[in-house]
């Protein structure tokens, strides 16, 4: 019935949304930040454990849709082992991909989000966790909102 929906809900996404990885609090984290999507009211919290400049561990909690949960789940897998600078670079790649559909460089499994740009109302969902990541890395105290994300 839902013919072309698979470019949004790819199998990997469905899998990660139903079985999110790293879905837990991290009491001893080095830093954390909250992401807020005013469009739906969903909140997501991202936790990072750093070793110097390197992200050793990542996890998340919160409510959200399938897309935002899968995005957070894949994010936490993806950034483990990356330096801060590498994570920021990935954020930019992911943002460009999600808003325009164009993938610059290799983003690995994250490429499953390349179809989101066709669903402008869901771009904020996919990007939510990434905004929280940046908030955590940059030490922002206030929740990061997707409000002004161009969709």
């Amino acid at each position, binding site marked *: *019935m*839902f*013919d*072309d*929906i698979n470019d*949004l*809900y790819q199998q990997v996404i*469905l899998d990660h949304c*139903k079985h999110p990885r790293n879905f837990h609090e991290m009491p001893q984290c080095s830093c954390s930040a909250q992401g807020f999507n005013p*469009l*739906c*009211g*969903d909140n997501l919290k991202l936790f990072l454990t750093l070793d110097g400049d390197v992200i050793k561990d990542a996890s998340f909690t919160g*409510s*959200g*849709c*399938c*897309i935002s949960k899968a995005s957070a789940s894949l994010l936490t897998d993806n950034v483990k082992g990356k330096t801060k600078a590498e994570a920021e670079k990935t954020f930019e790649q992911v943002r460009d991909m999600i808003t325009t559909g164009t993938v610059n460089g290799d983003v690995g499994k994250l490429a499953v989000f390349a179809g989101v740009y066709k*669903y402008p*109302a*869901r771009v904020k*969902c996919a990007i939510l966790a990434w905004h929280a990541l940046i908030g955590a890395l940059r030490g922002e105290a206030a929740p990061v909102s997707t409000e002004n994300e161009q969709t």
Partner: protein
Amino acid sequence: MTDWTSLRKDFPILHQQVHGKPLVYFDNAATSQKPRSVIDALVHYYERDNANVHRGIHELSNRATNAFEAARTRSAKFINAKSADEIIFTRGTTEGINLVAATWGAKNLKAGDVILLTELEHHSNLVPWQMLAQKTGAKITYIPVTGDDGVLDLSKLDSLLTPQVKMFSMVHISNSMGVVNPVEELCARARKLGIVTLVDGAQSAGHLPVDVQAIGCDFFAFSGHKICGPTGIGVLWGRQEILETMPPYQGGGEMILSVGYHKTEFKHAPHRFEAGTPDISGPIGLHAAMDYLDAIGRANIWQHDQELANYAAEKLSALKNIRIFGPKKNRAGLVSFLLKDVHAHDVVTLANQGGVALRGGHHCTQPLMHKLGVESTARASFYFYNTKAEVDVFIEVIKEIQKFFAA
């Protein structure tokens, strides 16, 4: 008997496909579609009569002024106002409520006073009062809802109607729960205590017969776009005696009697509250919409709305893993629901793939959502041009969504 299906011919937008499926438009609580006659009224105005109103003497200006003021008279009749002078044109319900808060409210409220609302309110009937409370030091209290049915707990009313209450503002029909509030009774209780009342008629005005004198409120606000009219136009009705005591809202052309560099006198209602060149095509389109609705009959429309909503609620109830919101009895034309483990926005995205336009989210009733322990719901909302067959499609789509996420 109204031939509901044949009315669909009047709505060009309904005859299109979305993702290869016939469009099923179930987002009517957000905004309604427009019949040909409303679109034609706009076109006719711009092709024949467009001019600025009120101060003009030439032919086009006369025609524009006549059409504009005829829309005011028509609006008065639509809600049985005593006089056209009680009709203020606004951008919509939101502006109407803001106007009351900023004029009546700023003049009459002070620290210690209380504004009584209900937990059902739309942000548009919350935020203006919160802003006013912040400015004046007044306090806000709420009539609680009892649970997922969205019904108000009126047993609390006696204790909430304290002598400090100066304004009681309430939604007529809740846009997220489909509850119809007993506004006549609530206004009567308030009136006995000298409390001024406002009814948010955004979801009621075009769906059932409205008689502001019978309701017994002091203000009634609604939006044109939700009742087959154009976007950007709405009506605030106020009882003449109250309007006459209110300071102006915006300042500018059209609302003044005379202006000096240092002294200015304002007109009476309604013009006092309409500064600058108004939306002119808006009221003219709204006039056509009101004619269209009343030709069908709002009592008729209400019955049709309710039938569809009851039918949809019943079919949904037969599904597993679903939570349904709204009253058991006298449900207005909408159903809010949640599928277990499926976010409302995923439901809406998938439904759209099946041609069905739903809305997901907090429906601008975020505090109510929090109270019920959810972030959002999915909502199907109906109007007279919707059919039972469309509800059947919708139910099929919901079943498929359940399968999709269960697989």
